[in-house]
């Protein structure tokens, strides 16, 4: 007769394996690390995870991750309400905020168009963006999706939708490494790209 690990151990291994980039081997290693330690790390981790789930939500305006709704950016009276920067992921907002070059608002799509991977317009926050632009006082939309095939595709699609609604449509300009992700671009490059954004 064979004995496996106790059910509580197996459960954590299986749960960790659901995370991106973590296979069964890494999941086991992490689990046994947590078991061995004398510290309160497992409990602190559990608290952090619970808080993450209970306290965060998507901003109902820009769909960034936030604890307060609307998010601090959307509710900041000093931000320029006539300009919206459209990005793929919440991490891209952080990257652009770090440059301190942009004082407008954001819109997080939560992905980019890729039919091969089953991602279509209805799976992204596209309808919400169009509604926001139509009902607001927006005069510029910056399409800051990644300089990848999918990012360019998404930008071209949004361009045709937004063209009749917005005075100025721009795309992040020169210097961004083609095929890369916005979140990995360094601050100077990203600031230059914002500064050199091109009218579409």
């Amino acid at each position, binding site marked *: 007769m064979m004995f496996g690990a106790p059910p509580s151990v197996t459960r954590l291994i299986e749960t960790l394996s659901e995370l991106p*980039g973590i*296979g069964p081997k890494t999941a086991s290693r992490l689990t046994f690390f947590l078991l061995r330690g004398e510290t309160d790390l497992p409990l602190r981790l559990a608290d952090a995870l619970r808080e993450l789930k209970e306290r965060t939500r998507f901003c109902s305006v820009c769909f960034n991750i936030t604890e307060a709704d609307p998010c601090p950016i959307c509710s900041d009276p000093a931000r320029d309400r006539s300009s919206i920067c459209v990005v793929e992921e919440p991490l891209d907002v952080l990257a652009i905020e770090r440059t301190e070059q942009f004082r407008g608002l954001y819109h997080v799509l939560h992905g980019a168009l890729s039919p091969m991977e089953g991602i*279509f317009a209805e799976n992204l926050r596209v309808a919400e963006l169009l509604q926001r632009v139509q009902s607001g006082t927006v005069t510029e939309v910056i399409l800051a999706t990644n300089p990848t095939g999918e990012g*360019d595709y998404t930008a071209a*699609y949004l361009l*045709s939708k937004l063209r009749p609604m917005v005075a100025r449509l721009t795309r992040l300009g020169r210097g961004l490494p083609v095929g890369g992700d916005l979140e990995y671009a360094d601050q100077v490059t990203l600031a230059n790209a914002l500064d050199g954004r091109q009218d579409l």
Partner: protein
Amino acid sequence: MHIRSLSLENFRTYTRLELECPPGPILLCGSNAQGKTSLLEAIYCLSTGHSPLTHVDRHLINWTAAEQDMGYARLRAEVVSRSRALEIALALANSQTRTGAQRLQKQIRIDRQVRQPRHLTGCLNVVLFLPQDIDLVAGPPAGRRRYLDDTLAQVDADYSAALDVYREALRQRNALLRHLAERGGDASQLDPLDARLARSGVVLCQSRRRLIADLSRYATRIHSELTGGQEWLKLEYHPNFDPALPPGLAYQMPMGELSGPPDGISADDLVNAFRAELDRRRKDEIARGMTLTGPHRDEMRFTADGVDLGTFGSRGQQRTAVLALKMAQREWMTETAGEPPVLLLDEVLAELDMQRRAFLLAQVGQVEQALLTATDPTMFGADFLSRALLLRVERGIVGPYT
């Protein structure tokens, strides 16, 4: 150009091979299934980034190595061309996806820098001639399109880039059409993909048209020499949709005669014509859930005195047509790249009569380097054997021929 050295690790029958390759003819001798063809296959992989024999990269990894959990293969060649020397390396290795599934990763390095497959353009030009290439005449059209793509992508960087864009746009577009057919949704998501498909598709069409016209010119002359002027071989391009042939003009220009768009038609006009056709068929394509128009459905035909050799040619006629095609490719590549490609001839002599053998061996004298395989070296004349480096291939080991 020529290959100075070739090294293989866990590739097909080869667990390990280090081979110095001098310029001139190299004759690989040995019984069947000892690794002669695999050696030519490896060189082709380094030239194009993929095998001519299988779509499944996993099959390229040595079977024993794969069994022992060494799921990788490495290929490397030093290539000397007129202007430079460079190193091409291709590695296949198992990696785990985030869902834990096994995936085979392919990595290409040129002079140790990681590059995309399309950057292989111009690094190592080859003409490969396999016994089964007779299927180019009589087999399904996909083989002919692959031949055109591989031939152009070896020497034309713009074509390689357009081919990448076209394939990606086509995959995305087909996935979107399937989704629209099954679930519906915003059909204007097609627009940006249509634009990409049209722009890259026109590059493919125009390049293929020029290539086929050029190859046909060389092949006609070569074929006429081979047949004593008895037959007139022609290669014809039959594009699925020809943006250079506006419907209104179609009746004036017979198919296959056109070597370019009519005067006064720009590349933009062609792109617009392609897009108009995509618009016209959009409803139909959504209903069918697939892309029905474009160079992924192109066709090329071989005719002798106007008769289609794919349908009506004898085996002998088809074989001669392929020989003429491959030797036309050698001339075209020499002219386009400014130096001769490496010839890779797999067991093709056995199928030919004395006259055609002599012709093919004379062609070997026209290139810097040729690798030939044979089970029986005696079919090569003493004169040729005295000029060639003879090697014996036995169970994945290459040694001197005694």
